[in-house]
């Protein structure tokens, strides 16, 4: 199409404007417009475990892995929303994995006890570990989170604690696949919608403001470091849970829990899905994990592919797939003719 003399205009769809305000819902069409996307996603996730006969155990496993990565990606996105970039999500994962491994191997407690306990202990451990860095902003947090999994690996190798190089195997398994799957799907959905809700509260506004302008948050009388600490703790919870859950699922806790894949795959999911939108981040995980399964034969080259995907998305579609689709769902785009002397006009529109 010849675009000379035209400009692109984006307008909210009428139905979007009408459904924006919950009091104005007046027809099934509007209610569906508002709720169908999320209800369809939830329903698909809840029905999936029942279709074991149709999909086979392999795809059940893929969805389970996707949920785990989605949890780690949600944790990444929460930190990102507070202005902290984590380059080592594996630290949360590994902390949860090792905590649950320790509890079940040394005390022989069942998974129903160790998973919640390991989630709490792992989250506290990570928060304490990262606490000194939270006095600084900028690249320090990212650098530390990047180094932590590597360093913890070395510490475990050097001290030979917690199984050393060998790890801890023979841990008690979880119950049954559909129930396992339901557990992690439920936790993931709670995190997606819970985090969204959290960021709509006043508390969430403070967290968001830390990212936008930390000095004004200080000026408003909030204790910056304390809020960041809380954010790290909240973000560590789903990460540690994912680690604890997968440890019992595989019945093994060891150094692979700190591997680079658990750092880069959540990061890639968040970037592809759309950082800042918790649903999008989960969507990213559900796009990348099956891709990763399909590429299993490539071995280490998979990590290279994730890297390329991340770089391409940051350069070409920085808003992510979810935000792009949401924009298409909410808005129409059309070409309108430009008025005479359009340069100033154009600048105005571009700037607005």
């Amino acid at each position, binding site marked *: 199409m010849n675009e000379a003399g035209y400009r692109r205009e984006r307008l909210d769809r009428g139905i979007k404007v009408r459904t924006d305000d919950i009091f104005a819902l007046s027809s099934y069409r509007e209610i569906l417009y508002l709720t169908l996307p999320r209800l369809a996603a939830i329903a698909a996730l809840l029905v999936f475990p029942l279709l074991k006969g149709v999909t086979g155990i392999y795809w059940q496993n893929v969805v389970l892995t996707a949920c785990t990565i989605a949890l780690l990606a949600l944790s990444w996105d929460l930190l*990102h929303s507070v*202005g902290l*970039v984590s*380059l080592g999500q594996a630290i949360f994962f590994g902390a949860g994995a090792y905590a649950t491994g320790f509890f079940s191997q040394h005390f022989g407690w069942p998974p129903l006890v160790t998973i919640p306990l390991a989630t709490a202990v792992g989250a506290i451990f990570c928060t304490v570990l990262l606490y*000194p*860095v939270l*006095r*600084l*902003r*900028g*690249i*320090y947090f*990212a*650098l*530390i989170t*990047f*180094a932590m999994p*590597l*360093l913890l690996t*070395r*510490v475990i*190798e*050097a001290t030979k604690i917690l199984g050393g190089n060998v790890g801890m195997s023979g841990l008690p398994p979880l119950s049954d696949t559909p129930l396992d799957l339901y557990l992690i799907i439920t936790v993931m959905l709670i995190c997606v919608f819970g985090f969204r809700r959290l960021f709509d509260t006043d508390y969430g506004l403070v967290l968001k403001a830390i990212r936008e302008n*930390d*000095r004004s948050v*200080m000026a408003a009388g909030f204790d*910056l470091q304390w809020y960041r600490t809380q954010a790290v703790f909240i973000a560590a919870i789903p990460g540690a849970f994912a680690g604890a859950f997968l440890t019992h699922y595989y019945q093994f806790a060891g150094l692979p829990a700190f591997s*680079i894949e658990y750092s*880069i795959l959540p*990061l*890639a999911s968040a*970037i592809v899905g759309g950082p800042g939108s918790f649903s999008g981040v989960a969507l990213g995980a559900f796009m990348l994990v099956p891709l990763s399964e399909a590429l299993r034969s*490539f*071995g*280490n*080259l998979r*990590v*290279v592919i*994730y*890297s*390329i995907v*991340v*770089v391409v998305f*940051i*350069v070409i579609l*920085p808003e992510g797939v979810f935000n792009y689709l949401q924009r298409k769902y909410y808005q129409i785009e059309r070409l309108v003719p430009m008025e005479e002397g359009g340069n100033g006009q154009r600048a105005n529109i571009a700037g607005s």
Partner: protein
Amino acid sequence: MWVAPPLKGGSNKIMGSDALIYSVLIYGLVNGAVIMLTSLGFSLTFGLSGVANLAHGGIYLLSGCLAWILLNTLGLPFLPAAVITMVLAGLLGAGVYWLVLQRVRGLALSEMIVTFTIGIGILEFLRWAGFVTYDFNLPVIIKGSLTIAGVIVDYQRLLVIGVGVLIAVLLWFFSHHTKIGLALRGMAQDEYTALSVGIDSDWAAALSMALGHMIVAMAAIMILPLGLISINVGYDVLTMVLAVTILGGLESTAGLTLASLILGYATAATGMYLNPQWTQVVYLAAIVLVLALRPSGLLGKFKELEERV
């Protein structure tokens, strides 16, 4: 990264305590020089353009592999191979800036994510391509060794010390007493003011990336002959650089030197008295201690206010 001296933790029973102290003193200096040379590139790029180039470890290892290919597959003599490697690394730095970083410039978080993923991509690509076996090591530049106070030091390690000091002095001169260096530092301090006096921001950043990469390539060619080319080296380099920058404070040449020496001696001492595996723990301890006690680094003043918020 641990550049192993010819004795291990277990052998200290055989040696006298004097010889052990001398070897800690000398190898501490060697380790300090290795650490400094490795982190100079990162520090330079960050100090001059504010880009935290987390692809550092990847570039370090890539340069080593590149030099290996030039030397062994193409059969070039050492000097041309080294020069070509450095030029290629520099071009890669400028290329990464033009292709990718320029588009996310100013978004510090995105810059970091991009360089990080590029670094991981390079490292994992090298792992996939198979540069992990014992076949891959670079030749030393000068063979032979000499004995200082009963401790055997080979010439390559002495050369690393010499080159490290030389590069540090040259860089200090470049960034404080040449027009280009001053322009680059101006850019780092206040981009808008620098723009208004006619310094091209993109050009400056691309140049600083290229320079940083060239120094990393040089460090790789100098240091990698001391050990093997392995993927873990690439990850360890980043940990090391991180410890140095946090200990010394960002954008402070004196702080960088001091931090390198402290870490060099600390790693040498732990390597001799405990076990080489513990050296990584030294970095961790250094990072945590400095962040808890003196978050702007030992000598960091310049970015103190901004970074401490």
